[in-house]
């Protein structure tokens, strides 16, 4: 004969186990319902912490085919790499605006900027950036010049820039601008001077 207090204990434990199973099942169902929609699937950048600073962005204008320097106040973190990323994200925010002077394809973003070797910066843009880019020497040249010059002006010490797409090397941006080589900042400076 099983003692009464033992039976009560076993029954209580069974009830708790069943209750927890039911709760876990409900929670799982709720998690499935609240899955992130596809349009928000891309990584969200962490909120930028830091004082607002005045920076110079080199903004492309398609219509006359020029590059103009433009001041902007943006919060910049302390680290060089993070500053580089924020600079380019601020530049892209202009291009992704509806009234942009140099529109980029939807979903275009800078995935990362790496400051690897002394003087070498690697800009990694996502596939949407290149896939949605308009094809043409001028349109692509303006994008490259804008990215390189903004980065080199905002982060002192950068003298070479490499652009990757989706973490990989690509031959051209959209059929014209060369992405297989490393850009020399001083040479890009000459190109920018012609585009101003």
């Amino acid at each position: 004969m099983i003692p009464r207090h033992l039976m009560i204990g076993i029954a209580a434990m069974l009830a708790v186990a069943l209750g927890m199973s039911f709760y876990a099942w409900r929670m799982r169902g709720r998690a499935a319902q609240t899955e992130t929609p596809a349009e928000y699937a891309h990584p969200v950048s962490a909120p930028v912490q830091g004082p607002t600073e005045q920076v110079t962005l080199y903004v492309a204008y398609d219509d006359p085919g020029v590059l103009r320097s433009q001041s902007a106040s943006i919060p910049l973190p302390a680290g060089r790499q993070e500053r580089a990323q924020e600079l380019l994200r601020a530049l892209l925010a202009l291009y992704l605006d509806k009234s942009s002077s140099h529109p980029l394809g939807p979903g275009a973003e800078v995935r990362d900027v790496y400051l690897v070797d002394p003087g070498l910066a690697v800009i990694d843009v996502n596939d949407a950036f290149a896939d949605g880019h308009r094809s043409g020497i001028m349109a692509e040249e303006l994008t490259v010049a804008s990215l390189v010059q903004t980065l080199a002006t905002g982060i002192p010490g950068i003298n070479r820039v490499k652009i990757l797409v989706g973490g990989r090397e690509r031959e051209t941006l959209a059929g014209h601008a060369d992405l297989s080589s490393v850009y020399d900042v001083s040479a890009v400076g000459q190109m920018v001077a012609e585009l101003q």
Partner: protein
Amino acid sequence: MPWSSRPWTHQRCGNRPTQRTALAAIFCLATLFAFVLSVSGFADEKRLSVYSGATGYSLTVREKNGTDYVGLLEVLQPLGSVSSRTDGRSWKLNYNGSESEFTSGKTQARVQGQAFDLPANFLLENGDGLVPLRSVPSLVSRFLWAPVNFHEASRRLFIGNTAIHFTAQVNRTNPPTLVMNFTSAVNPMIATEPGKLRMVFTREPVVPPGSQTLTFDNPAIPSATFQENNGAAEIAVNGPVPLFASFSNDGRTITITPAPQATAHAPAPVAQPAVPAPQALPPGTPQEAVANAVQYFVVVDASHGGEERGAALGDQLAEKDVTLAFAQRLRQQLQARGLTTLMLREGDTTMSLDQRANMTNQARPAIYICLHATSQGSGVRLYTALLPAGAEGRGPFLDWTTAQSGFRAVSQTAETSLATELGKRQVVVRSLLAPLRPLNNITAAALAIEVAPSGGKLADLNSPAYQQLVAESVTAGIEAVRDQLGEKR
């Protein structure tokens, strides 16, 4: 005994040279035999190639008692986790956790728990288990539980569906190009010899097309043959002139083209009456002189082409078509002024940027003109190369990415001249630097011309009058600096 000693002495003295000669001859023969054996052994080293989805590798086949053998460990090691141990005459093999057992000098074995009969005795040599080559397909199939296909004559073993197929087609361009598209990336060893370009595939499971011989009905590249031998596949492309190969499409496309100097000897196409026909040279003329008999002054490159459409200029208008039409008009103008012109593509052909640069540099023109078209903006934009950060040239060798560096001045001279001529004809013109390949790879004056509609209307791009106006301006610009361009060359 005097009678016996004399003949003996005489015989001994008389036989010395004979014996030495015989010894020397035997030594020489032995050396020669050993050399022939070693050389023939080296040349005829039998190989087995194994191709799986993940890897391709080649093994040495050893001949024992007139039978071909391979080391089973060598076969299985690239395919999974494998170890072995010897226990007397027994050799135990563990492949991915499953044990098999072979016995030296016996044909019976246990593979993956089941009896297996080898066609010849299993051999144990310095701890290495050798199995007859003929048993390898069955053994691999048993170990991997996968279908295998063994090309016995050529000793090529295909595991699963790993074959690489290819298509070959000659484009009737000038020069004609043989475009070979492979279903996966390939990296063959390439060798050229008079009248033939050989591509040997040792690690790639390239399989023959329907026929071993492909004929193209083109005098410059009449045929190609496929053959398999000793663990490798070989495609030999035949042609009466030297051929060279270039890779594109991430190694999945190989384009074979007659060398530009050689194409100069091909009968000039009817559409190019102004190109001087090659002269018949007297016997004994040096080959170099023959090769340089026709030298192109201008190389015109209609950008994009084939699978690469360039910019979509309109619903029905691709950049590659506009550049081709414009290039044909420009060539007509240039040749009318006596400027020999080579067009890199004359049809809808895919060409890599490296291939364009290679062909141009081999043709050694005075100027390279690359044509682009755009629907944005108006007028004509002239671009010279924005040189990337690259290495310095070493001696006679130029860094590929900055090969244009020695020609920037002459490129700018040409650019200024073209801008002047375009301006004279009221065409809006702008001169810029651009990071645009292959300008930076060209060892001659090099310009890119991007043509935009004159009045903002897309139809201008296809307008014969507008194309003619731009072509005349470009031709006049080149002609104006003809001497300076020629000097640099």
